[in-house]
């Protein structure tokens, strides 16, 4: 206690003593104010960063006044610093014999040739800007510092998307840099209503996060909810948007994704335009968007770039594929184990003949094949690219031909497993596809117990579960349950663009009109030739 009261008393005294006190008692709270003597500041930085080799301190003189430039090598644009900062500071011509001359203001106004310049008064801000790539200038005799926006260094260039591919449509994708990502979105939505709210998460990593939404379109309630959930987070680090996703989602106990993520700026932009909120995390090329609904995971970007009849049929195909991926093997198990009468007679005989030499029941056979396939898939993902080819050949040979010839599995089973696997890849968003992959095993077990009844029980529990989910307060099965007619324009049938008149009701409450009237294209009238 005595120490603490001492501490408060000392605060009244000169700030020169602060460093000393720090040395004596490292557990004491650090004094936040910058010292007047620039040398003290420099030694403090050096001490606190442990003489890190990437910390560059350049002492210089501006006329007669000493000062120092501090920045972190690798985070800054080195050429910019030497050209526009050091050069201009050193060549500055100071006005003579002016009693009111303020060097600090002079530097801010006349010399520092950078777009964004800030005055810093405490150490927290100083470290924030220093470690995010700004250059800090200390001047002797001032208890404040100048921070110049000199962010730079190496970053990955914008490349083609690797996860969510499309035939038609833009080919750029997000990178690991937050500013690049927000720029990619802003380039598409040139409206002052697009808001970018900055935040910082991670007590150690101090990761930059930005919440994006379009004012007037996004539902204020949802924006507020997102903001609250993000500010509530107390964690040491955020490595990817995946961390954030798990910290803000509504329900942990579900295999279905309740937040949407994409690496495509066009997808995120269109989500914003529907009234959703996007969350960009620095260091992650995947941008989150919330609220997410179930049907959204079956909408590929292509759907909107090609004509509606084609995209509708492809989308229906995709939904069918999802169902196959979910219940394909369990249907096979149920039909061969319990409901042989459902299969046409000739096919039933053929299957029975093939299965004659297989020693396992259908369930074990299916389970084996599925697990082997999942292993192959995971191995294919992790293997160095050079060996990847070998694995696929071995996989195809081993689980395809050899297993059948060795009478471990029947050929029909191989077909079922392959179709299931292929079908699984047609879901546009991986998070949804992997959910089907997992649930498939549960359904297989149910169908091995009681056939179709088990599958239906499984699907029913799934339906109940899906209906009970919410994403940021929006029911997950919207617009199917609760049903609304407006929402149907983009569920099973993708309406023509001119007919998608309104934004989804559950996202934006007031500003819902998307198109003008009479947007349907028509041939010119009165031209009969």
């Amino acid at each position, binding site marked *: 206690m005595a120490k603490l009261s001492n501490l408060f008393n000392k605060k009244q005294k000169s700030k020169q003593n602060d460093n000393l006190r720090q040395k004596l008692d490292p557990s004491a709270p650090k004094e936040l104010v910058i010292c007047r003597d620039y040398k003290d500041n420099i030694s403090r930085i050096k001490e606190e960063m442990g003489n890190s080799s990437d910390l560059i301190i350049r002492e210089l003189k501006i006329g007669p006044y000493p000062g120092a430039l501090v920045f972190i090598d690798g985070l800054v644009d080195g050429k910019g610093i030497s050209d526009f900062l050091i050069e201009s500071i050193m060549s500055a011509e100071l006005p003579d014999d002016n009693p009111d001359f303020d060097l600090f203001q002079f530097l801010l106004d006349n010399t520092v040739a950078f777009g964004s310049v800030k005055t810093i008064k405490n150490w927290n801000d100083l470290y924030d800007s220093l470690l995010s790539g700004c250059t800090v200038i200390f001047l002797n005799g001032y208890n404040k510092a100048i921070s110049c926006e000199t962010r730079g260094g190496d970053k990955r260039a914008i490349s083609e998307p690797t996860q969510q591919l499309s035939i038609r449509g833009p080919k750029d994708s997000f990178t690991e840099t937050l500013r690049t990502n927000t720029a990619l979105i802003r380039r598409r939505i040139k409206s002052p209503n697009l808001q970018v709210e900055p935040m910082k998460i991670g007590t150690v990593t101090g990761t930059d996060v930005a919440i994006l939404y379009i004012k007037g379109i996004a539902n204020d309630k949802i924006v507020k909810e997102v903001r609250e959930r993000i500010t509530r987070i107390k964690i040491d680090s955020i490595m990817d948007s995946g961390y954030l996703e798990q910290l803000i989602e509504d329900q942990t106990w579900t295999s279905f994704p309740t937040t949407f993520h994409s690496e495509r700026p066009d997808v995120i932009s269109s989500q914003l335009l529907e009234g959703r909120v996007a969350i960009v995390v620095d260091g992650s090329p995947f941008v989150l968007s919330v609220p997410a609904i179930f049907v959204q995971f079956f909408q590929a970007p292509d759907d909107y770039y090609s004509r509606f009849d084609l995209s509708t049929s492809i989308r229906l195909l995709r939904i069918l594929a999802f169902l196959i991926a979910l219940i394909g093997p369990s249907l096979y198990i149920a039909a061969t184990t319990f409901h042989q009468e459902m299969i046409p007679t000739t096919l039933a005989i053929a299957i029975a003949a093939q299965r004659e030499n297989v020693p396992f029941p259908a369930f074990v056979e299916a389970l084996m094949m599925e697990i082997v396939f999942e292993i192959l898939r995971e191995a294919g993902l992790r293997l160095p690219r050079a060996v990847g080819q070998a694995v696929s050949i071995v996989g195809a040979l081993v689980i395809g031909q050899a297993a059948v010839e060795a009478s471990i599995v029947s050929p029909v089973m191989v077909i079922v497993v392959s179709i299931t696997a292929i079908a699984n890849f047609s879901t546009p968003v991986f998070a949804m596809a992997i959910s089907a992959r997992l649930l498939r095993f549960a359904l297989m077990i149910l169908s091995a117990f009681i056939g179709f009844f*088990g599958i239906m029980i499984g699907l029913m529990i799934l339906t109940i579960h899906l209906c009970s989910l919410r994403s940021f307060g929006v029911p997950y099965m919207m617009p199917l349950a*609760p049903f609304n007619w407006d929402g149907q324009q983009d569920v099973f049938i993708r309406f023509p663009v001119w007919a998608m008149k309104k934004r989804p009701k559950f996202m934006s409450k007031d500003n819902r009109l998307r198109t003008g009237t009479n947007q349907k294209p028509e041939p010119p009238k009165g031209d009969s030739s």
Partner: protein
Amino acid sequence: MEKAKISAKQLFVVVVLFEMGSAILVGLASSAKQDAWIAILLGMVGGITLFLVYHRLFVFYPDLPLTSYVQKIVGKWMGRMLALLYIVYFIYIAGRVLRDFGELLTATIYTNTPLIFLITILMITISYAIQKGFEVIARVGEIFFIVVYLMAIAGFFLIIFSGLIHLENLKPMVENGWMPIIKTTLRETLNFPFGEMIVFTMLLPYLNKPEKARVMCISGMVLSGINITIASVINVATLGVDLFVRAPYPLLATVSKIQLAQFIERLDVLFMLYLMIAGFIKVAIFYYAAVIGTADLFHFKDYRKLTLPIGTIVLLAAMFMAQNYMEHIKEGLDVVPIFLHWPLQIMIPVLLLVIAYLRKKISQKQSLADVSQTADGADA
């Protein structure tokens, strides 16, 4: 009571699925032979009249379920006894419906599987839904509604294109006079399924727009009545009167007759899908009503604690209410309507309405008297 709110659309969907429920599966009104459809329509009209009684009660007490307002109408102790009686009734009917579905499954597809196994699994699924609350049940209902309708439309066209419909089977109409039809109506179709709307007295307070309750419920009843009628007409037209009367599950017999293009056949799986959905909704509604009724009567804050115990009771009731299927059916046709449905669906609600009406009249008179007294006082 749970803090749930459902929309008018959701109420409609739940009513339709609930009413169609098992009525479409069993040979409803088969004692009226080829005139079953007339009995169904008459039952529907009677059911709507009954519903108006329930609705009137709801208008008197728009925020309360049956188990609460019954205590206000006939007094605390009498009311509590009645509420308990209704809870037991809901549990019993839930058990009956569950047994119906279990029997259907064991009789048709799972001939070697023990009944208890099948209905336990079904019950676990339903308990899960109850645990999630009524809003979720309503949403699940919406999805199932779409599935059922797609299936029904597909099945309807398949039957027509298979050339199975022989409308002459419906003739002669009213062969034995109106008496058997009216008898069937009063003993069967009025109570089951239309009188079962009594369970919605527990659920109407959840509606977000109470003024729409009447329109939505009645239109739901009409739609389901029409559907059951169509199903019954198709059954008779496809199977003929003899088979229709004898078959325990005429719709299953009809569906398994579908044969088209040497490819579409054995559509029993469609039937089973419907069976599961209908069973789910119907048991879930009764079960849920019993659960929230108990929570309401015994002042439980969280109804979820009751899901498991009441679920177990429903399951045991379903298991032990009858030795075998014949006994189950006999009870259902001869005992339950007279001793359970008639008193609980018709007599008590009508009586309650009369008492509630009189109470209101008296209290109005009293307040009028008070007003006139004060007016007199002012005059003096």
